[in-house]
């Protein structure tokens, strides 16, 4: 059974799922998506990034300039990272479906 990623790892994978981002961009995206609930400080962020690089879930790209013309190191999700994110999303979906079947959540429209 694959290891469940921590919320920090899962959120970073979600941030990188649709585009390449630099560290601060990831942090802002996570903060926005979680309504300021999950604030990844620089230590947590880069510590997690390092682990994810070692696990082959993300890839580091050569430095390039961002929208403010500052040189940044960008990160990109790998196939292994996508697989981890997908597995976790499916796990969460399964839990949500259970919650729906137990009437803890409303049924989706058009789904019987």
């Amino acid at each position, binding site marked *: 059974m694959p290891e469940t990623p921590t*919320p920090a790892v899962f959120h970073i994978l979600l941030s990188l799922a649709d585009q390449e981002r630099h*560290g601060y961009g990831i942090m802002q995206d996570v903060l926005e998506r979680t309504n300021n609930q*999950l604030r990844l*400080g*620089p230590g947590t*962020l*880069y510590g997690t990034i390092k682990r994810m690089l070692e696990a082959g879930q993300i890839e580091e790209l050569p430095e390039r300039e961002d929208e403010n013309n500052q040189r940044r*190191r960008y990160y990109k999700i790998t196939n292994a990272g996508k697989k981890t994110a997908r597995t976790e999303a499916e796990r969460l979906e399964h839990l949500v479906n259970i919650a729906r079947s137990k009437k803890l959540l409303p049924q989706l429209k058009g789904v019987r």
Partner: protein
Amino acid sequence: MNLETKIYQVLLKLYPRDFREHYNQEMTRVFQENLAGEGSSFGFWVRTFWDVISSVFEVQVNTKRGKLMRTALVRFGAVCGVALGFYFTWIGVTSPLFTTPSWIEFVVVTACFVFLFLGYALLRNTRPHALEITGYAALVTSLAINILQLESLQKVGQWFYVFSFLALVFGRSLGVSKRINWHKIPLEAKALMLLTASSAVPLILLQTFHLSWSNVNQNFQGMYTAFFALIQIGTGGIFIALGWAIWSVANQNPDRPSRAQSA
């Protein structure tokens, strides 16, 4: 460079050198952007310190040297477990804690554990090694109690030792609980577990009988204290068996086929 950045640069020295060399610039930039966004408030610094303290440990244990230390720590933990096991068994058999804890002691111990588990609860969402960090926190606390000779907290210190050992043994980053394939634990270790259990039973019975008989007139004080003795002996047995099992697994050569495979 402003004062805030200088302070952060000092904090960054806590990280391993190779990590610093790679991420120093990026981390400082993110820090400065956060500072610009939030301002240098008290809350900002609390978050910053918390972020550094809680991530330094994880980064440190994941370096090459940290990994070597973890292996050494597993073995050290195993030895400590066996030693602690004998210690508890000895105490349980000879001179158990025959004093009923006072209400204040009970409250202090409970409060300490509440804080400990609160820390763990805060860490577990973002740290994969939350249990291990909590274990070290407990270990440091118990050592501090001993070093500072805080008599009134000695009992808390003892329980923190026990907790830290359990947390470190079962902590995920040490990976002991994962590395132990219980089916492959050597026969000797299983035998020792059985032996410990079988020898503990008569000891517990003797202790219970003796204590309850001698203290029967003291409002069942004997039964109560015998319960403590029982816990001590039981804890001792568990530690010995676990320590032995961990040591055996740590010494197993993964390249060598197991007995079952050879057969």
